[in-house]
């Protein structure tokens, strides 16, 4: 395992034009960062699944035609900040991620899920961690 990010590191962000590249690229970035954060395989799978759902649903709710995600990897935890989203977009994205017969996958998999409004825009914050951490 490589060393974790230092506090003074530059941020990790990705901005992808809404379209067919969002899913493949977001899943790949999340998978790499989850592995780097030393998440165990089942949680790494969860993170990639959440990334896939965000990639599928976020384009309908973004403000500027791009899906922007900022990452904050930590020891056995990975946080995603999705947005800017249009007002109401955060909740709508989560609702859209519901799978018939399964329920809301993001809600079930995330350890923390909240919408952060900032003026005329908002962000969806998703955190996944390994329950055995600490």
């Amino acid at each position, binding site marked *: 395992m*490589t*060393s974790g*990010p*230092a506090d*003074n*590191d*530059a*941020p*990790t*962000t*990705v*901005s*992808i*034009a809404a*379209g*067919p*590249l969002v899913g*493949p*690229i977001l*899943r*790949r*970035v999340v*998978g*790499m*960062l989850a592995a*780097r954060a030393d998440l165990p395989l089942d949680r790494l799978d969860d993170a990639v699944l959440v990334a896939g759902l965000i990639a599928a649903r976020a384009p309908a709710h973004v403000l500027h035609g791009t899906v922007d995600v900022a990452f904050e990897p930590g020891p056995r935890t990975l946080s995603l900040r999705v947005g800017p989203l249009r007002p109401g977009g955060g909740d709508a994205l989560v609702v859209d991620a519901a799978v018939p017969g399964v329920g809301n996958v993001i809600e079930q998999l995330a350890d923390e899920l909240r919408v952060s409004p900032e003026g005329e825009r908002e962000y969806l914050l998703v955190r996944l961690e390994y329950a055995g951490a600490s």
Partner: protein
Amino acid sequence: MGSSAPQQLRPVEMTERPETPRTDVKLTLPARPENVAVVRHVLGAFAESMRLPDELIEDLRLAVTEACTNVVRHAYPDGDPGAVEISIEPREERVRIVVADSGRGIGTSTDTSGPGLGLPLIAAIADAVDLQSAPDGGSRVAMTFRRRDPGRAA
């Protein structure tokens, strides 16, 4: 940035007028060695989605890896990694990838004994290269690759 003097390159002039800027993917990462692998994976996902031919994928990966490695090695002081920014701009006829940093700019590196192979290699692989050093620091390597039909020589 890099250990190679810019005059060693044989710049390839752009023969087309610049198109309307449209970046499909912009990735910003701390300029750390392990993040070069993230860039390579992103390029892989991009290339698979665009159904680029294998030969072009390898060229993209090699050239962008070299550009990112230059940033990691030379752009910032040890222990203080700034950002490396990778922009991917696919077009119908070509793919343009820009690797940029806000470090100490292009020049002779103090941590190597001579010119490296990175920039000459990029110049040899890419169909066009544009190398810029910002006045207030930082560098920018723009690489353009012609898209080739699978199974047809370029």
